[in-house]
């Protein structure tokens, strides 16, 4: 009696991956139009890049693209982690900013005290993972995710303010900072880390038993439980992995900016959730993947970047982001309602 025999959650169709959910009347496979609609965000992103390169001459230069990618990679890491949480049907992890700040403070404190690159990096990540473990355990026991992560956010933010005698940490000029500021050939390390994390999470989601469970739990928690899937372990895993990526973003942010305090990572939760949702991962759980989040992150980055290049007031950025959410998610919601009628 293996779990796979009973949990039929999403059926791969025509080898397109589980994104295409079979609906009644579509057993023969989705129409090309539906396939395209499911991937509309990829089309939007490509159009955005093409328009930006044609309209803004400075956009398609190596230096600018590099700057763009670096600017999104840290918050992007948190967004990749948030993807897992959202797919598992847990709505959001509001404690991400506290995890990022904790990672940065612990990482730089260890670095400052001369523990070396590996310990500093691991220490920051593990500290954040403990926060994720707390989230996961309480939520797996049935706590409301919004509520639990809000409570944990408040507590950990308080702890962050008290760490290092309430002083900012500046780290030690050494391997950690060199690593965060280094480049692999033409590609900055931050960007490499971001894309590697995305590939890793994409692999975990699509190719492993754990990833399958994340989709199953997110699509319908009670049927996943009835089917014998380890629901609790899956939820805890999703929150711990998400926290690990947030902690990694924190250590790197601290090392890159040479400063760590409780304000590092402020606003990451909203940014991450925005990127996840714009990418087309459903807030109801069970759908989406890391690739979509990467596209969401890049789209947000392109918009911000173009606005800076065009010298538009920075205050317009949240306005455009908000309108983009309404357009993408609202379009989906209206289409869904039209279909159900």
């Amino acid at each position, binding site marked *: 009696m293996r779990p796979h025999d009973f949990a039929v959650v999403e059926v791969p169709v025509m080898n397109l991956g589980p994104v295409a959910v079979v609906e009644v009347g579509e057993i023969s496979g989705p129409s090309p139009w539906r396939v395209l609609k499911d991937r509309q965000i990829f089309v939007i992103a490509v159009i955005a890049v093409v328009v930006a390169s044609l309209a803004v001459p400075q956009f398609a230069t190596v230096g600018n693209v590099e700057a763009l990618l670096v600017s999104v990679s840290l918050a992007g890491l948190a967004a990749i982690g948030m993807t897992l949480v959202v797919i598992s049907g847990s709505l959001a992890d509001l404690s991400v900013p506290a995890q990022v700040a904790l990672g940065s403070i612990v990482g730089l404190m260890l670095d400052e005290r001369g523990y070396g690159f590996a310990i500093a990096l691991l220490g920051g990540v593990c500290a954040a993972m403990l926060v994720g473990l707390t989230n996961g355990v309480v939520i797996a026991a049935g706590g409301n995710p919004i509520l639990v992560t809000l*409570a944990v956010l*408040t507590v950990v933010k308080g702890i962050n303010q008290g760490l290092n005698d309430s002083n900012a940490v500046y780290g030690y000029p050494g391997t950690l900072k060199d690593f965060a500021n280094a480049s692999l050939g033409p590609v900055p390390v931050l960007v490499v880390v971001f894309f590697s994390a995305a590939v890793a999470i994409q692999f975990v989601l699509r190719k492993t038993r754990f990833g399958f469970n994340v989709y199953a739990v997110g699509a319908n928690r009670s049927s996943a439980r009835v089917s014998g899937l380890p629901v609790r372990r899956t939820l805890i895993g999703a929150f711990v992995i998400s926290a690990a990526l947030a902690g990694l973003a924190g250590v790197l942010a601290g090392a890159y900016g040479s400063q760590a305090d409780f304000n590092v990572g*402020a606003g990451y939760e909203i940014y991450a959730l925005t990127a996840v949702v714009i990418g087309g991962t459903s807030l109801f759980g069970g759908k989406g993947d890391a690739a979509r989040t990467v596209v969401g992150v890049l789209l947000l980055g392109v918009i911000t970047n173009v606005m800076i290049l065009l010298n538009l007031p920075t205050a317009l950025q949240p306005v455009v982001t908000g309108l983009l959410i*309404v357009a993408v*998610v609202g379009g989906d919601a209206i289409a869904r309602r039209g279909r159900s009628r």
Partner: protein
Amino acid sequence: MNALVSRVRRRPEARILLIALVVMVVLNLLLPDATVSIQQVLVRASTAGLIAMGLTVVIIQGQFDLSVGTTYALGAIFTIFAGTSNPGLALLAAAAIGLVLGVINGFVVGVMGINSLIATIATGSIGLGLAYLITDEAPVQGNNVAGAIAFLKPVWWVITPPVIIFLIALIVLQLFMLRTRTGRDFYALGGNQDAARAAGIPVRWRVFQGFIISGLCAAIGGWLTAIKLDAANPNQSIGVALLAVAAVVIGGTALTGGTGSPLGTAMAALLLAWIGSTFDAEGMSAMVRDITYGSILLLVVAADQLADVVRAIRRQVGRRIRLMSSRRGAATG
């Protein structure tokens, strides 16, 4: 006596009453010398309480409003723009922007059908951008410092004008939620939206009303702050929404909707303000306050889990006993 106890226990405010008692006792034991000005606690609670009570209405409907922080900031900014020398006119301006934001939220959630969590993140983001644009990302000053000082003078005993506004809002909202048909519809919506629709409740219109109430409350909260400080700052929106959610939940309203009351939220806001004022009076840092707030919230969540477990055990034990007695009955009979 027993009847009275069980009646109190059934009220949604019972839990916050218990929490408040425990916190008061613990605070008194830990900080026996702390002196707190009740007048200050009330003022402190009035803004946060106003915002949280508006949010309560939306959460009872089973929706979420993360844009209250932005609405609060925009209410304050519009108050300053209308001129603090005429608080009445400024109140109208703040209420107008609150109404507009409420209608937009209602449209995006009720008509377009976007999940309210992400929808209000979007509208909050748009509103914040507009707030930055119209203020050039800098604090704005009012023109009535004397009014700001007078605003915090007690009218009677410890009751200052902001507290009067807070109390009026509390009474109106509590009566609205419990005594009017529309208010009860809100509970029905939060309990089961499909059933509410089937029962003929105009769901979309109710969602509109909920977000309008929440927008108005948050904007009037902004008006209070702006009159009090004779200044407004677009950055004041940060963290407000999450603190308001905390107050709502500690006050006994479930995030799943259908239960709770504005009164419970008001009590929670008072409790949090009491704790904050005590810690401030003792010169303790924001760290202690944050950890305390978060721990109370965690305890509330944990208590809910525990209540579920206890209920499950009771059910199990009850079933065993029934099973055993029926077997005994079969053996003797």
